[in-house]
């Protein structure tokens, strides 16, 4: 292990350090503002979930009506946290993998502020009751071009870096990053055009919106998360990715299936009949890339369980990858025609959204953030305990949301299908699961308080100045230098330098 570390030569370290330095402001901006948006999204999610089982909760505030707060919650989660975390990951990973410093960090920072401004205006309009009313595209129409412009300004430099890279070899993570950067504009422009510009049939507009929702996850958030997993797993363990062929297989399976998904939400609605069935089939097939990626990443890290246990980055990433496999299995089961009929109008869809956005994407993003931030701030994370709390609360929180929403959704769907029962019985059935979801958002709120506080302290350059990484395992017994952080020893790479 120590051998690998000492091989790293001056030029290499200097290049990496200069890349990190060139990107430190935009990346830190994306991560910190993303974390704050995540905190807001979780508070809104808590309120939105509470409204589902206790409608009288906070009813004195009209801007927190169920419809508004639900839309604001998802929008803040997707565009405030998700997109910004993804931008930070894209620009950092792409710069590192293409070995190019960023020359446009000022522009990216400006575009980041523009994006934040757009999201803020959009969420404000939603809470004021002026949202567009299209699921997942709730911001009013004029916000979307601003967001798109900001997106182009943020990512175009990464495309250029990829284009002018020296080496010919394209690493797996780069496929995913490149794909995410090219798919996002396609999905975004198409959905925006058909929903807001063309005056089409309203049923089809709902179909396009649900296509957008599915593809935004499958073709943007998921590829960024997988790029991070394919980067961190070999990087932290020092081993090679298990199989190049499997990586190719998983990537192209996702690329081929992703664009078909989404319309299954409109099963039974009067749109051309094959569309919802093709969507359902694509969602069933998502299990294939999920298994491919899951096997590949987990086999990469499987021999090094102690490294996974120690490294915050790898723990979060491994959990995110496992969540993707679970997502694939559930997606396969819940999108067969009989199951879909039952859960189509229930909580289940929300459970799958959260499993995807929080379970898969966000956990991989946390892993990436725990890896990237010490490099760009040149400080180590302050508290092992904060990270551990963040990890366990996230784990239990997201698991509770997914279990409650999916099991509750199945019960709810069964209640809707049972015509001999009045509607109210079904609602009472589901409301106990609603309580579970609310409680779980509470877990996530605590998790994110630790995360957000920790990140803001790092942002304020209050991190530890040390050459010892903050790992999740105590080394009091084995580390000759004493507890982490107490002894500074820049000159001696330690045995525990896996991270």
């Amino acid at each position, binding site marked *: 292990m120590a051998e690998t570390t000492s091989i790293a*030569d001056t030029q*290499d370290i200097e290049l990496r350090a200069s890349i990190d330095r060139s990107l430190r402001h935009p990346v830190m901006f994306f991560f910190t503002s993303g974390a704050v948006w995540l905190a807001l999204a979780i508070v809104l999610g808590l309120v939105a979930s509470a409204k589902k089982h206790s409608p009288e909760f906070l009813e004195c505030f009209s801007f927190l009506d169920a419809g508004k707060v639900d839309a604001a919650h998802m929008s803040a989660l997707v565009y405030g946290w998700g997109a910004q975390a993804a931008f930070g990951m894209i620009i950092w990973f792409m710069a590192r993998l293409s070995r190019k410093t960023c020359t446009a960090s000022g522009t990216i920072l400006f575009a980041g502020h523009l994006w934040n401004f757009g999201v803020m205006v959009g969420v404000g309009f939603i809470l004021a009751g002026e949202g567009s009313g299209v699921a997942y595209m709730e911001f009013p129409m004029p916000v979307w071009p601003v967001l798109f412009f900001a997106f182009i300004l943020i990512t175009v430099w990464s495309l250029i870096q990829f284009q002018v890279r020296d080496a010919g070899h394209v690493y797996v993570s780069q496929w995913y990053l490149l794909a995410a950067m090219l798919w996002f504009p396609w999905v975004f422009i198409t959905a925006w055009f058909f929903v807001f510009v063309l005056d089409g049939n309203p049923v089809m507009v709902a179909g396009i919106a649900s296509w957008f929702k599915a593809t935004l996850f499958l073709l943007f958030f998921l590829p960024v998360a997988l790029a991070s997993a394919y980067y961190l797993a070999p990087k932290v363990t020092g081993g*090679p990715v298990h199989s190049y062929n499997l990586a190719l297989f998983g990537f192209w399976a996702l690329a081929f299936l992703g664009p078909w998904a989404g319309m299954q939400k409109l099963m039974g609605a009067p749109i051309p009949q094959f569309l919802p*069935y093709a969507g359902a089939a694509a969602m069933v097939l998502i299990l294939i890339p999920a298994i491919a990626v899951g096997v590949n990443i987990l086999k990469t890290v499987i021999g090094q369980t102690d490294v996974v246990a120690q490294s915050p980055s790898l723990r979060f990433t491994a959990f995110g990858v496992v969540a993707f496999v679970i997502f694939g299995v559930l997606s396969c089961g819940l999108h067969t025609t009989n199951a879909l009929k039952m859960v189509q109008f229930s909580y289940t869809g929300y459970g799958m959204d959260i499993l995807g956005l929080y379970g898969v994407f966000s956990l991989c993003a946390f892993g990436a953030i725990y890896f990237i931030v010490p490099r760009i701030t*040149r400080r180590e994370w302050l508290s092992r305990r904060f990270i551990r709390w963040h990890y366990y609360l996230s784990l239990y929180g997201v698991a509770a949301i997914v279990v409650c929403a999916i099991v509750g959704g199945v019960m709810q769907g069964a209640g809707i299908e049972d015509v001999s029962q009045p509607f109210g019985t079904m609602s009472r059935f589901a409301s106990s699961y609603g309580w579970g979801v609310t409680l779980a958002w509470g877990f996530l709120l605590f998790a994110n308080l630790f995360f957000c506080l920790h990140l803001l302290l790092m942002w304020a350059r209050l991190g530890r100045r040390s050459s010892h990484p903050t790992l999740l395992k105590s080394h009091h017994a084995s580390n000759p230098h004493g507890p982490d952080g107490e002894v500074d020893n820049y000159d001696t790479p330690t045995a525990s330098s896996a991270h």
Partner: protein
Amino acid sequence: MADHSKSRDLRPDLDENINVAEAHAALKAAPAVGREKSLRENGMESVSLWLLLVSGVVLLVAGAVFGQGGGFLNYGELVKDGYIQGNSPVGEEEPLLPQPALSFLQKQGAKHYSTCNGCHGPGGAGQPGNNIPPLAGSEWVNGNTEKLLLIVHNGVTGPISVAGATYNSQMGAIGANLGPKEMASLLTYIRTSWGNTGDIVTPEMAANGLAISKKRGGGKTTAEELKKSHDKMLSGAKLAPDTLLDPETWEPVTKADDSQDAAEGAAN
């Protein structure tokens, strides 16, 4: 671990040029960067058989789902038959519940009476001053139904004695376009309103009457002709006023299949 270093400069995030002193100086400046490991050559394991088998099973499931969509890429078919719930709860669709025959036929007939309204008046009193006979208390309305139907369907001309007075005028074939259901409801309406004491004319009776009228060959009737050859009740089963009718088919329903019929109505 060092054996994979040959082609490293072709790979991203990695260069090789060892200078320990400089490396340590750089490490000092950026400790986290310095302890990073390099990305290594991808493993070349082949895709395992069980993974391909699982993918095949998933592919089969997905194919079954897609196959249920029916015609491939058919833009014409919008909704697959039977996707929506077949059984909706009883009592959800108010207008489609079975209704008592008398009130149902009266309600339907009242719509058609608006045509008669202009001459015979909303109360069926007619306009004796203008030579238009009343319907209320008229023996032609309360009495045998065949002649009544022929009057409505073909019109009437010449002197006619109604409720003790003789009228001599023309009535057009106002009801020439009414089908059996409409005719039945109209006749039931005028025979049971304004104190009239007639009974229900069923669509079956009206259909028989229209057949007779067709055989007769058209042309306005006269009181004399009606009295001579059409002074009888229309043939057909009588209907009690509180028999439940299915509002879709106008057929009587028995209590037992009420719910079923209503449900069918809802599903249609």
